[in-house]
């Protein structure tokens, strides 16, 4: 086709010719055109550039003025009485007044806010959220957090007319580019305010203003102190809420959590004071990302910033809103058109997540990962360690077996859904007083009583639990952490005890007083038990007193290693006071080998030849399915009865014994009971008469190490620190032997560990006597029982509680117990981080003594603040003398506890009455801040080392005339040829 082949060329030529013609024609005018074009462009550019400069300058100027409102408010330039109670926000949904409000939620809007009303999508979100939440959660909106005076931009301001226009343009976008620019001024203005709130200098002032506004708003809507608060901050509102939260917490003394929705947060506020920060961010949210870059405190580089510390401590959870969700508008979290892959709108998802968090149905996964098996897990292999082995209904011969306590049972953690109803934990009743016998085997509800002291205790220790990185790591290494309560709101001491181990196998006895209330009005048919003290962890249900005769060699051998587990025993006969009672066969199962420490927890090898067998053993346990009595724990009678092997008189001799002799004899398998009396009784009677049934003694516990062929890893260095604990020994009349005996409970401040030993009040038969979890057979132990009337005497003390004066009878020992209960409960959840670790600043010894310090401080304070007490003391010379003794002791103790004249800051601040002043520092692994840790540890160096601490404190008591009963054991029980006792290294003096 020739035509078509030639035609393109023709066209090109024609075109070229046309261009040439036009060029020639226009050549003279072309420069002119170009020139004027350039001028026009230049002028436009000029105008444009000027506009930009003007804008920048105005923003800069506005920046200078941004802090002025807050500063002027602070300096009182607007007059002293600013009516901050105006416009206290409004409720999204009115709530029925007869309901008990369980939580207050306050919404702070993003930077587009100019007045109390929000953008339509925000209103939609709030309505949906209110609809989704139960009625007893109150949702407050309409707070103008971008003005320290809570004043909208659109009223009472010089520029109000302008802001009104901008707000109108923002609400109904029209007016093109110019309109959008005007509307954007609100955002710019509010961004500047956010930067004021984030500023280290202006921030404290501004944020206090915000806190004040929120405070007023809450009060206006019937807030009662203590009710938990959730702040929701969208975008810049996140920063405003974060800034205000610490001040709000200080004034309301309530737990506060913050949900930051696409929040821009600076990271230099104390996130650690929040219960938790939930940070919800979409993948396309560029503005939130700017925050992470703009604010250096959020860079990983500044590892010690509040933000990064909080992150490591598990205080911050990042929750993704999905890859495609942006910051605002149709793509933002309030978008109600765009759909997620699962078919929900962005808005629906946002409402769902926030509503779940507020209702404690946190979408976060619990830390359950474990790389290594814990000892606890391995111990579960043996049926004798599992509660299910022992039938709930059982009876024993009351002549030879007695229940350990009237109320006993197994703690069961409620599920998350049950929590709201239960408000405590379940207790599977193993034993009850006769009148409640029919409840044995049933599940009842166990709750705290509502006395003021119990409430103060709960306030001090109840925390949201979110595992820190350290806790998760420690758990992966095989330590037992309470992962079942991870990400739970407001975990109290009962829940933390019940949830302390992977299984519901915490067996406890309840301390008096136990209040029984049948059937609640709400229609639930469960019985409710209310208690005022921590349940005591125990082993077994019944106990007997026997002498072991011989293993049953020819019987069935149940142990794979060919060791006998059945033993012939003879019971004690209290008439003849000899072991002449019932002869029977009992089951003493072999414990599971402890791979971590490298030895067996206990053994029955040659147990009949143990020196302790002469006086017999208390055996603790229950019957299994076959009706055999299974011995879960043992205790040598010789140790616990009030018959010392030796009595030492005189202060110097007593101190010499304590110092030189206590740990000297460490022959394996032996035990010793020695009474030290610094002063002899007036009437030449035996010092034993001083110890009567019902008496109580303060106990200082120290244990040593496992040495020998199979020494534990911790014993490989030449120094062995050991372990320290306080406890209480009560003298009781033991019915089986019909003699006085020490009933011992420890308040174990115990870090999370591989064995599943749980911090708290632990009975002797659990902590030492348990044949699987206890230390009697493996560690040398020294318990010093300190008896001093001034310690145990009740003083009627006026206790100022929220303005009301309440008298209550308490002894110094009771106050110490209360402090120890606080400390152990804090330890169980690591102040909300889920873990505690041994370090120089925090360990069993330091923190037990921190509790002692707090108790002494409390005593001193109460004496000072109670003129009534001083008056009554004057009238009672005996009490007064005791009190003088106490005052002296308290003074010397405080001096010893703080050798550098001042207590550690964290000791000074912690206080049951003022839990919010607590600088909660538990749950930080020693590696995190090594130097600080060592420094803090050294400030209280005398209590850093268990043995030194015990000797220091015992000495002070001796000097005040207290008598001390020393109970020493060296790996008592069967004979393990591969281990040797190691005394804790003596350092100091």
């Amino acid at each position: 086709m020739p035509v078509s082949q030639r035609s393109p060329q023709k066209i090109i030529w024609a075109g070229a010719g046309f261009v040439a013609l036009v060029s020639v024609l226009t050549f003279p005018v072309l420069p002119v055109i170009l020139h004027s074009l350039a001028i026009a462009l230049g002028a436009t550019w000029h105008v444009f550039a000027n506009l930009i400069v003007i804008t920048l300058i105005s923003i800069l100027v506005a920046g200078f003025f941004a802090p002025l409102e807050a500063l002027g408010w602070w300096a009182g330039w607007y007059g002293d009485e600013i009516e901050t109670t105006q416009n206290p926000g409004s409720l999204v949904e009115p709530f029925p007044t007869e309901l008990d409000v369980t939580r207050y939620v306050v919404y702070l809007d993003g930077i587009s806010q100019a007045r109390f009303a929000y953008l339509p999508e925000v209103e939609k979100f709030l309505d949906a959220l209110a609809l989704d939440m139960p009625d007893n959660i109150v949702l407050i909106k309409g707070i103008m957090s971008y003005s320290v005076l809570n004043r909208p931009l659109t009223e009472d301001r010089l520029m109000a007319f302008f802001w009104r226009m901008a707000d109108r343009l923002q609400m109904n976008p029209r007016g093109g580019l110019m309109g959008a620019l005007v509307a954007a001024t609100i955002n710019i203005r509010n961004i500047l305010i956010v930067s004021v709130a984030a500023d280290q200098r202006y921030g404290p002032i501004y944020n206090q203003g915000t806190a004040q506004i929120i405070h007023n708003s809450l009060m206006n809507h019937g807030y009662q102190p203590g009710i938990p608060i959730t702040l929701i901050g969208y975008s810049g509102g996140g920063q405003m809420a974060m800034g205000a939260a610490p001040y709000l917490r200080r004034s309301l003394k309530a737990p506060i959590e913050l949900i930051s929705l696409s929040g821009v947060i600076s990271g230099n506020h104390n996130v650690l004071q929040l219960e938790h920060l939930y940070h919800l961010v979409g993948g396309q949210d560029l503005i939130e990302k700017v925050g992470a870059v703009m604010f250096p405190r959020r860079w990983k580089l500044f590892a010690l910033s509040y933000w990064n510390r909080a992150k490591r401590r598990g205080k911050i959870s990042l929750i993704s809103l999905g890859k495609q969700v942006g910051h605002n508008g149709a793509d933002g979290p309030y978008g109600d058109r765009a759909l997620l892959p699962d078919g929900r709108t962005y808005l629906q998802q946002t409402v769902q997540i926030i509503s779940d968090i507020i209702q404690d149905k946190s979408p976060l996964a619990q830390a359950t990962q474990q790389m290594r098996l814990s000892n606890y897990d391995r111990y579960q292999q043996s049926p004798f360690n599992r509660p299910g082995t022992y039938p709930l209904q059982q009876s024993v011969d009351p002549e030879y077996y007695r229940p350990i306590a009237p109320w006993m049972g197994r703690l069961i953690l409620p599920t998350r859904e049950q929590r709201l109803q239960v408000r405590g934990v379940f207790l599977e009743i193993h034993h009850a007083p006769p009148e409640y016998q029919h409840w044995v085997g049933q599940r009842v509800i166990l709750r705290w009583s509502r006395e003021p002291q119990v409430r103060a205790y709960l306030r001090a220790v109840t925390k949201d639990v979110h595992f820190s990185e350290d806790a998760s790591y420690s758990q992966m290494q095989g330590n037992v952490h309470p992962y079942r309560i991870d990400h739970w709101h407001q975990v109290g001491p009962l829940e933390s005890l019940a949830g302390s181990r992977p299984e519901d196998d915490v067996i406890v006895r309840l301390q008096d007083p136990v209040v029984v209330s049948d059937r609640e009005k709400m229609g639930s048919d469960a019985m409710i038990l209310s208690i005022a003290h921590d349940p005591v962890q125990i082993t077994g249900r019944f106990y007997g007193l026997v002498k072991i005769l011989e293993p049953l060699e020819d019987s069935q051998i149940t142990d794979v290693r060919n060791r006998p587990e059945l033993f012939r025993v003879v019971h004690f006969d209290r008439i003849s006071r000899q072991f002449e009672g019932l002869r029977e066969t009992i089951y003493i199962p072999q414990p599971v080998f402890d791979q971590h420490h490298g030895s067996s927890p206990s053994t029955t090898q040659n147990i009949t030849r143990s020196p302790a067998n002469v006086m017999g053993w208390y055996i603790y346990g229950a019957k299994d399915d076959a009706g055999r009595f299974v011995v879960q724990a043992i205790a040598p009678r010789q140790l616990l009865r009030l018959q010392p092997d030796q009595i030492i008189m005189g202060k110097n001799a007593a101190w010499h014994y304590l110092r030189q002799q206590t740990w000297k004899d460490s022959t394996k398998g032996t035990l010793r009971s020695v009474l030290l009396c610094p002063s002899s009784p007036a009437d030449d009677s035996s010092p034993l008469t001083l110890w009567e049934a019902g008496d109580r003694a303060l106990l200082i516990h120290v244990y040593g190490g496992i040495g020998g062929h199979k020494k534990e890893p911790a014993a490989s260095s030449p120094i062995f620190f050991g372990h320290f604990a306080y406890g209480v020994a009560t003298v009781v009349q033991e019915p089986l032997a019909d003699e006085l005996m020490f009933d011992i409970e420890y308040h174990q401040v115990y870090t999370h560990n591989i064995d599943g030993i749980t911090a708290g009040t632990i009975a002797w038969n659990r902590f030492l006597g348990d044949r699987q979890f206890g230390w009697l057979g493996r560690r040398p132990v020294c318990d010093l029982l300190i008896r001093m009337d001034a310690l145990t005497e009740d003083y009627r003390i006026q206790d100022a509680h929220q303005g009301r004066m309440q008298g209550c009878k308490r002894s110094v020992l009771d106050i110490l117990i209360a402090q120890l209960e606080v400390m152990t409960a804090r330890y169980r959840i690591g102040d909300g981080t889920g873990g505690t670790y041994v370090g120089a600043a925090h360990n069993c010894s330091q923190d037990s003594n921190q509790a002692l310090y707090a108790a002494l401080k409390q005593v001193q304070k109460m004496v000072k603040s109670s003129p009534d007490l001083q008056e009554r003391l004057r009238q009672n010379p005996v009490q007064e003398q005791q009190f003088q003794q106490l005052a002296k002791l308290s003074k010397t103790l405080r001096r010893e506890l703080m050798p550098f004249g001042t207590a550690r800051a964290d000791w000074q601040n912690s206080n049951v009455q003022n839990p919010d002043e607590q600088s909660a520092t538990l749950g930080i692994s020693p590696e995190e801040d090594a130097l600080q840790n060592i420094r803090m540890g050294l400030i209280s160096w005398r209590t850093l080392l268990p043995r030194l601490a015990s000797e220091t404190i015992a000495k002070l008591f001796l000097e005040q005339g207290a008598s001390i009963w020393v109970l020493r054991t060296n790996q008592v029980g069967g004979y393990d040829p591969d281990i040797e006792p190691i005394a804790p290294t003596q350092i100091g003096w």
Partner: protein
Amino acid sequence: MAETAIAHLVSLIWGALSLKAEAFQQIQVLPQSSQAALLVAFMAGFSQAIGQGIVLFINRVRPLRFILSLLMSALLFAFGYVFWALSTWLASILLFRGGWQTLPAVIRTLGLSYAPLIFSFSIALPYLGLPISTLLSIWSFLAFLTGLKAALGLDLWQAFGCGVLGWAVFEGLQRTIGRPLAGLGRWLTNTAAGVNLVTNLKDLEQIVARRAAQVVNSSKDRP
């Protein structure tokens, strides 16, 4: 136009800002240069006082007193500058055995090197203020080094050493023989402000915390 330093102030400041050695050489030779240096220091001081006005706010100084306090701190700043110059000069003598004649040179150099601090008012900017303040200090120190190099004919490291030692001497003086003077300065400041002005950072924080407690308590009394 008369060939005085005051008349050329703008170009001198500009030169110092752009770290030009010529500006510092010029100020050594022009008449009225000491006045010019003092003026620069005063301006820097006033600007800095504005930038740090938050201190006055926290102390709840009344508006009129506020202005007075600004002026007073500018004056004190200029005073401090003279002492700083003295100590730097002392340092230079200690290091390089100069003589009396170098003192005016040091005074002029230091004064002009305050030029970047004229922007100190921008410390008041929220959030950006703190990094700006750091930047300005570094900038001013660089100008000072440049000036010292030019004025005393030192090399960079010598100038640096001189600056550091000068700072040490200044601190030493402040803690010893400068105490009565500092006391006088404090008295002047407090008189201008009309309250006992707290400037120490820790104490300022305490004021804020105390006030917060008061506010909360007073609001609790409300029904």
